[in-house]
């Protein structure tokens, strides 16, 4: 009995212990997955908020672009910004997202169209990821409208905005970012680093803008008969400044949000982003001060954007001092780039979109090869990363500028890309939309 009793007790204990072990285990698993779920939920909240901030950049672009152009084309610019995001949203959902993040055929993704395969009533990550990626695509699309402002036929622009979000942006995106979901791309495979999209988003938009501005030709009166560039001042610098503040604000979603993870990287990336923007604004202001005797307000605004675009690629990979340097250089670069396109190449880009997004996007991507604390040339990493970055930058240019020229040329030859001279003089607001932006205001339209 004793033995039995003891044995029984021991067995009981064993049982208890094993029971505990089991309980412990399942409980452990359970708690572990619950904690994972929680972090996952936090990531979703963060990524969603970041996506909303990036969406708000649409307002920023609309304000900057309309502020830097004439009053008679304001309705048109608002409409273009509204519609490129709207059309972009729909086609990116239908086609683009799948091309970019679906299982890849080596060149682009082939699944996930219309978010197929995702539970239509569930809480899947894909949903949050889709909205985040949609607003990125929309950013790329809307860059172009500034460079083509004040002379583009509205219907032609709609066609363009369909193609960028359905095709041009997502395919390139799949090369660099496909593996963020189920895709994979040759650029990311060779080690191309573009954390939040200096190239993927901004340069793609910028080079398309360049193609558009070239195919369109300059606005009437932009160049004197003997080829001198003339100033066509923007009509509302208050709006433009508001737009830049909104963009800067939105960029805190753009860059830190690209972690899609709610943790301490957010703060670090916010710091590099903010420093680069500040340095860009300062550098542009002083550069324009030296170049043209006075600190040009429109240049300082462009400078902040230049810093933001440039830091976008490396925001997670460079030190704060590195970000200061990148922003500062971008701020100088953007001024000379604007001068170069405007006066030397005679490409009429009313808001400086090509310089800000194309040129500074490329610069920022290359700068990762120099300033990355891991692998950057200045940190002892040699030229390897820089070379890879250059490949990415170049392929973006070839892809976007090449397709852009083709696309705009085809539009020009079919439905038409430019409004009539008469309509351009009177303003696209009346010509394309039958209304004025500032009804009742006395506005000189001598220019």
């Amino acid at each position, binding site marked *: 009995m004793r033995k039995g009793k003891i044995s029984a007790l021991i067995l009981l204990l064993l049982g208890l212990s094993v029971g505990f072990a089991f309980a412990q285990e399942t409980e452990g698993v359970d708690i572990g997955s619950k904690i994972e779920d929680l972090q996952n939920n936090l990531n979703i909240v963060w990524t969603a908020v970041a996506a909303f901030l990036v969406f708000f950049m649409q307002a920023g672009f609309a304000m900057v672009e309309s502020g830097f152009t004439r009053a008679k084309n304001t309705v048109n610019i608002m409409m273009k910004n509204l519609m490129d995001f709207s059309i972009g949203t729909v086609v990116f959902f239908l086609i683009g997202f799948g091309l970019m993040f679906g299982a890849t055929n080596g060149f682009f993704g082939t699944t996930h169209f219309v978010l197929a395969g995702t539970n239509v009533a569930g809480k899947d990550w894909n949903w949050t990821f889709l909205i985040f990626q949609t607003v990125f695509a929309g950013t790329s699309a809307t860059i172009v409208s500034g460079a083509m402002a004040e002379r583009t036929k509205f219907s032609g622009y709609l066609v363009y905005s369909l193609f960028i979000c359905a095709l041009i942006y997502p395919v390139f995106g799949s090369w660099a970012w496909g593996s963020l979901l189920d895709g994979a791309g040759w650029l990311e495979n060779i080690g191309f680093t573009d954390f939040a999209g200096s190239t993927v988003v901004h340069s793609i938009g910028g080079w398309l803008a360049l193609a558009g501005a070239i195919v369109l030709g300059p606005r009437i009166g932009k160049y004197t008969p003997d080829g*001198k560039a*003339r*100033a066509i001042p923007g009509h509302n610098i208050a709006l433009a400044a508001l737009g830049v503040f909104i963009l800067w604000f939105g960029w805190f979603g753009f860059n830190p949000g690209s972690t899609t993870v709610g943790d301490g990287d957010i703060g670090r990336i916010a710091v590099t982003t903010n420093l680069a923007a500040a340095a860009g604004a300062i550098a542009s202001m002083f550069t324009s001060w030296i170049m*043209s005797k*006075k600190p040009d307000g429109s240049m300082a605004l462009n400078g902040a954007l230049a810093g933001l675009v440039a830091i976008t690629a490396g925001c997670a990979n460079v030190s704060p001092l590195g970000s200061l340097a990148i922003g500062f250089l971008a701020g100088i670069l953007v001024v000379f780039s*604007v001068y170069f396109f*405007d*006066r030397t190449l005679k490409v009429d880009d009313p808001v400086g979109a090509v310089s800000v997004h194309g040129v500074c996007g490329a610069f920022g991507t290359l700068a990762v090869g120099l300033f990355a604390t891991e692998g950057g040339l200045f940190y002892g990493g040699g030229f390897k990363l820089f070379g890879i970055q250059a490949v990415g930058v170049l392929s973006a240019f070839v892809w976007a500028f090449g397709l852009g020229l083709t696309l705009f040329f085809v539009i020009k030859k079919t439905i038409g890309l430019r409004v009539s001279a008469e309509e351009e003089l009177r303003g696209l607001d009346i010509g394309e939309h039958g209304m004025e932006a500032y009804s009742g205001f006395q506005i000189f339209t001598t220019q």
Partner: protein
Amino acid sequence: MKLIIAYVQPERLNAVKQALYEREIYKLSVTNALGCGQQKGYHETYRGADIEVNLLKKVRIEIAVNDSFVEPTIEGIIAGAKTGNIGDGKIFIHSLDECIRIRTGEKGNEAIG
């Protein structure tokens, strides 16, 4: 009756009005104008491109007066507008055939004041 047109610097408008009040000229009309005169305008650059501003902001004052008020009006305008600098402005005077007060239908000298 005369119609007196004066172009003056915008910031002198209040002083002109003041000076005219003192001379008992209470009625006038003002429009916003741009002027090109001896004052050469200025050069600026906007985004690196040259911009020549040679139409400067002016204010156009129009005053209809009876003949006896022509002199005080001119005096008043000059008193208010003159700073001695280029750009101070000009006064033009021509004769008026008729003047009608819409509210009452009064005509001529009676309507003007």
